């Protein structure tokens, strides 16, 4: 066990740190906003990619560096340390790219992957639908093949992060309703600028609109943009989902809430409270801080396992479960410490991309308002508990009400 860098890691860290320091203005250090401006964000990612700091773990032939998860983690840590906004194409890198690498044709890999890493193209993930959330395989978006072999897509996706900026997306569709729901799915790469695609921002309870609804009205996709075999879409999607959970739950980063920032906030406010209240605040903060430390070090264990060649397993879901809880507690405490200001809101404008950025009250209020969504996005707590219960602890699944039914029968039953 060793938390210190190996000499190789230390050298890598020094190199990364120096690069980030040299380019801190270009990289938007300490501006705190990822999507302030699409072009700027793309330029930042390209700068980092060209320096070799994006897609560190991706194979060289996919445009990556062929590096280790630890190297990637060091890049992430150094970016966080320098307060450089996250990459615009996080979803592309974390979820879409691995799916193309795992299931795409050589032609698709050649055309897409490097551009994705440079953010020449921004990607999104088109899985969820209004009628299929946790039960993803119940999706209804239809893909029908014509005589030329092209696919015609009709349907609606929802909760699509970045769709309003994206160039491409991975799209899960139903190609055969007359088999069991998991078996009739097929995955495609879709051009978001193609005719028939329309994107509508979906406003969240924060007031912001990071998500979108995406409508497909007879959108044509050539068969060459299929990812994997016809009817194998569920297997392809599992690659994506496994990557997603890792992105959300692992690696020792904080979820939704930077605990040191909360500590600073608490430290700045606690002294003004009566002693009794200080004691209560210390209990709440201590509990949330322990939870955060637990999550951080569990992330390090996961990262170590990945470095030693393990695949990201369902254990990563535990990180999201624990992290969501800790973040809720921290946000709640942070807001309560605002005193009289705690009853005032961020105002919906603070969450908009064109906002000048939130003030202190708004910062915590926006976080608070964003957290209920975080407990749902990327798998509700209930779904994550099922996954851990069944795939880690080996507990038996629930009997399936939809067992042995085709999708068409299920849909007719109103499910």
């Amino acid at each position, binding site marked *: 066990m060793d938390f210190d860098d190996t000499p190789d890691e230390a050298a890598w860290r020094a190199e990364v740190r120096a690069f980030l320091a040299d380019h801190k203005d270009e990289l938007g250090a300490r501006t705190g906003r990822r999507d302030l401006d699409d072009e700027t964000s793309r330029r930042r990612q390209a700068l980092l990619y060209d320096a070799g700091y994006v897609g560190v773990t991706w194979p060289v032939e996919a445009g990556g560096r062929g590096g280790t998860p630890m190297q990637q983690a060091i890049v992430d840590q150094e970016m966080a340390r320098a307060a450089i906004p996250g990459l615009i194409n996080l979803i592309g890198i974390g979820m879409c790219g691995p799916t193309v690498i795992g299931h795409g044709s050589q032609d698709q890999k050649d055309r897409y992957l490097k551009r994705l890493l440079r953010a020449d193209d921004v990607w999104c993930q088109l899985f969820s639908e209004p009628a299929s959330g946790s039960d993803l395989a119940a999706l209804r978006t239809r893909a029908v093949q014509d005589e030329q072999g092209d696919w015609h897509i009709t349907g609606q996706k929802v909760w699509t992060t970045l769709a309003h900026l994206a160039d491409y997306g991975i799209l899960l569709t139903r190609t055969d309703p007359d088999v069991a729901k998991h078996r009739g799915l097929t995955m495609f790469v879709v051009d978001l600028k193609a005719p028939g695609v329309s994107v509508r921002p979906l406003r*969240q309870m924060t007031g912001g609109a990071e998500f979108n609804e995406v409508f497909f009205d007879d959108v044509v996709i050539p068969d060459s943009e299929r990812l994997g075999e016809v009817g194998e879409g569920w297997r392809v999607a599992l690659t994506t989902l496994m990557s997603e959970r890792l992105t959300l739950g692992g690696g020792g980063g904080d979820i939704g809430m930077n605990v040191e920032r909360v500590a600073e906030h608490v430290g700045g406010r606690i002294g003004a409270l009566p002693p009794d209240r200080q004691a209560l605040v210390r209990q709440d903060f201590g509990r949330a801080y322990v939870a955060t430390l637990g999550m951080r070090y569990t992330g390090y264990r996961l990262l170590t396992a990945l470095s030693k060649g393990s695949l990201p397993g369902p254990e990563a879901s535990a990180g999201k479960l624990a992290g969501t809880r800790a973040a809720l507690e921290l946000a709640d405490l942070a807001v309560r410490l605002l*005193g009289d200001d705690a009853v005032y809101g961020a105002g919906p*404008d603070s969450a908009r991309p064109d906002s000048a950025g939130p003030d202190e009250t708004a910062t915590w209020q926006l976080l608070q308002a964003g957290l*209920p969504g975080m407990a749902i996005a990327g798998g509700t707590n209930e779904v994550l*508990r099922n996954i851990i219960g069944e795939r880690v602890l080996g507990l038996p699944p629930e009997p399936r009400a939809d067992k042995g*039914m085709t999708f068409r029968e299920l849909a007719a039953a109103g499910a």
Partner: protein
Amino acid sequence: MDFDLSAEQRDLAAAAADFLGAGADLAAVRAALDDIETPLPVPPGRKGLVESGFATITVPEASGGGGGTVLDLAVVAEQAGRVLAGPSLVGYARAAELLSGDQARLAALADGSLAVAVHDGGPVLDAVGADQFLARVGDDIVIAAGTVSPRAAIDASRGLADVALGDAEVVLSDAAERWRRAEQVGRVVLAAEGLGAAARAVELGVAYAKERHAFGRPIGSYQAVKHALVDAYVEVEQLRSLVWWAAWTAEEEPAALPLASAAAKAAAASALERAAETLIQVHGGIGFTWEHDAHLYWRRAKVDRLLLGDEAGALDEVARIALGDLPGAERAGAER
């Protein structure tokens, strides 16, 4: 013993539900959230509420009010909470207590010519739309005009603003005890509004859980969803008992009001937060969209829990009273 609403109170609840169901408007509450600079009061508004007579139920009939009890007002407040009506009945409840004996002002309150809010030193509930403010200076109750500075709202239906008071006129001297009682009555009415909002949030969650399917069956058939709703429901029903009891003490056993109002306040803060969070969680993605009503209940929860003292403060009071540090436990402590 008869721990139930009377037939008249049930009729009152039904009438309030009719009026508020027609008058309140969640879409307006949502729209008001975008209205940062110049927030507008949400429906039914002061005028409608006063004209309906519901706002001033506790003002004596001689002054043009309803001559009813705090329990009557709590029954109405529950209905108001269900639809997130504005302004809160808390202000009217407190004003009726604070102005007790001041016939002229009570009459003005009841006929709507006095639009008053209560100023506790921090953010003022329903300051938006008020032109006079009741406040405590030393042991005096005073009234004053004020300069209202609205701020971005978490819950736009609460009309919160910072208020700088103008010149004050003394309404009543040596009135610390009355101020405290009015605050306690305010807590009861706030808890009653919280009860209504929480009960409604559970209903909305239950309705969705019956209708939405996942994996071939309604999500409400899954224990994770079912039990979350049950826990929220059980908490709401405990709250209902505390609200009724606390409201009843206001007239019938004032010595127990400090304990009962603190208990109801604490229970309301927790029950409404749980109910609103459960409502969002049960709805999944749709539950955290702007267009869904779930976040309006969540916003109400996040604000109300801090009004008239927070949950920790209320629990501290409960404990001090129950442990004998503070008066007010006469009935609760007595085995009968």
